[in-house]
């Protein structure tokens, strides 16, 4: 394990932050403060913590999208307050609360446009990665994540083919939480490991434990290095979704016995135990981290909720739709 104690503590801080964000999203949805069907990350926090650790540790700059359950990574890119405000549909959001978390887009912070229909962004990010390579930008790559569901889309195969053919600097990342809405992964693919699809394009593909933030971080760092050397590759992390597809989903399609003992499968608890064994975490730090992360997120929600929503004029602003006056009228 090539991480210092400071890095491990920061990783811990990020896994807790992801947990708190997931819990708060559920809370605010039930209290009617968040509109739409947002997908919280509960159970999958180690994935975001691992990705963030890799991003912070590496000198490689990434441009990409996130899976909808990696909101901590989105927030890291665009800034926590602008992210939360966008989630709430408020004017302090990174897109003025008009685009929404589903369609988040903030190029200056490396956040490429998300897509409602799944499958397409891998090819979109491949195009961006091509531009980086063609401009001779060293150690800048495309980061292309999807869940186990999206990668059955044909466009993802087209994207992998393009990336392998043009030797693009891109990392394809599969956050396999075992279920796509209601359909279990075994009903979606005959493969045991979805990263095996990389072989069809002569790319490297690895599968690691997505509930271990260290394993995720190591795999992502390795994949980023390969990508930076124009070797596109696939990293799959296996995790588990705790919530329904949406908050409030009764999940009638699924055996819910896992809920009886969440601690036994909890990536946060597991990481805590490991860090306590290593002697770098104790109850006091656990309490302090939880408090500070909760405060930052709650403050963000409070600030977001104090903001207005966009006016009709802002939403129907011609310049928000067209780039020049040759656009006609709305």
């Amino acid at each position, binding site marked *: 394990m090539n991480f210092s104690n400071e890095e491990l503590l920061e990783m811990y801080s990020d896994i807790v932050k992801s947990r708190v964000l997931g819990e708060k999203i559920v809370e605010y949805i039930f209290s009617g403060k968040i509109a739409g069907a947002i997908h919280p990350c509960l159970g999958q926090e180690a994935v975001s913590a691992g990705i963030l650790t890799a991003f912070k540790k590496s000198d490689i700059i990434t441009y990409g999208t996130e899976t909808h359950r990696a909101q901590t990574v989105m927030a890291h890119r665009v800034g926590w307050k602008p992210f939360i405000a966008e989630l709430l549909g408020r004017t302090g959001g*990174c*897109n*003025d609360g*008009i*685009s929404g978390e589903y*369609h*988040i*887009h*903030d*190029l*200056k912070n490396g956040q*490429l*446009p998300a*897509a*409602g*229909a799944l*499958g*397409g*962004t*891998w*090819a*979109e*990010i*491949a*195009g*961006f*990665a*091509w*531009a*980086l390579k*063609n*401009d001779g930008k060293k150690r800048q790559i*495309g980061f292309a994540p999807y869940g186990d569901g999206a990668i059955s889309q*044909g*466009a993802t195969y*087209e*994207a992998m*083919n*393009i990336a392998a*053919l043009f030797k693009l600097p891109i990392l394809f990342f599969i956050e396999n939480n075992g279920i796509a809405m209601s359909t279990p992964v075994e009903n979606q693919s005959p493969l045991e490991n979805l990263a095996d699809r990389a072989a069809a394009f002569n790319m490297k593909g690895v599968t690691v434990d997505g509930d271990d933030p260290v394993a995720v971080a190591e795999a992502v760092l390795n994949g980023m290095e390969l990508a930076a050397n124009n070797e596109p590759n696939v990293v799959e992390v296996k995790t588990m979704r705790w919530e329904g597809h949406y908050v409030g989903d009764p999940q009638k399609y699924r055996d819910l016995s896992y809920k009886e003992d969440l601690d036994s499968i909890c990536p946060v608890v597991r990481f805590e135990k490991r860090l306590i064994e290593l002697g770098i975490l104790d109850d006091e730090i656990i309490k302090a981290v939880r408090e500070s992360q909760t405060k930052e997120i709650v403050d963000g929600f409070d600030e977001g909720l104090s903001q207005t929503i966009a006016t009709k004029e802002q939403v129907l*602003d011609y*310049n*928000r*739709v*067209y*780039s*020049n*006056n*040759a*656009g*006609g*009228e*709305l």
Partner: protein
Amino acid sequence: MSEMSVMKALNLAMFEEMVADEKVICIGEDLGKQGGCWGTFTGLQEKFGENRVLEFPILEAGYTLFSVGAALGGYRPIVEFMFADFVTLGFEGIVDIAAKIRFNSGGVDSCPVTFVLPQGGGGKSGAHHSQSVEAWFANVPGLKIVAPTTPADIRAYYRAAIRDDDPTLFIYQRATMGLTGEVPDVLDEVPSLAKAGKIVKTGADLTVVAYHRALLNAMAAAAQVEEETGKTIEIIDPRVLIPFDKEIVFDSVKKTGRLMVAHEAPERGGFGAQILSWVVENCMKELKAAPVRVAGVNSIIPFGDLEKYLYPSVEDMKAGILKALK
């Protein structure tokens, strides 16, 4: 001035824009040694290299989305679909992604991609290779649609489409690839896509709005009717459908009091219905008779010579003009 074909004008426009802006790139199938399926990319890869003329495998969905990513990365892609019909595979990239880039970025980023769509009949290629697609996209805010006909207009408006910062569909009629006309040696100014309508021919008794092969057929029919009736017919080529030059059409209809709109795409939900609506909404008191549409039959395009039963012929145009003149 030089006499050149539509095919040559397409090639010239891309050549000129690639010289003018090194960020212009071409994306599509068979663009290398073959010069594109229709020869319109001839010589471009040889001149500008494989990093500017990118020959792709057969994956329209993939390269449509790729082009959006490249545009966000600072490039200005021209994306060819071999047949406009194949744009069905690129629909998500155009409609859901490209058209909404500017909006979802809060008006910060643009998406300067030109999607090139050779469309319509004339090739006798049947159901999957002969459709007219402009109306599929006219209902999508965020897109622009450019549809010129003559070689000179193709050259000028193709360049304008490539230069425009918004996602633009450049649609031309495959059947008229060999149509020739005078094209200026140097284009003094690349035109704006706004106010692009052009009065092809002036007249006093009827306004005809048409584009692509329907324009050519309407012009032939109008000449016959003028000869036979002594009436004069004003013909307008809009050249750009979105943004549509309404004023030039309204001004003409206010003068003539009559309107016929023609295109090859099926009548139902066709762009002609939109033009008709605008005119009725704005020129009702000047209209002397109900406006007329002449368009493709609302059916599937058959193979071979049978396609002639679908598309409006010169005779159909003549019947439409006579009806509108009643």
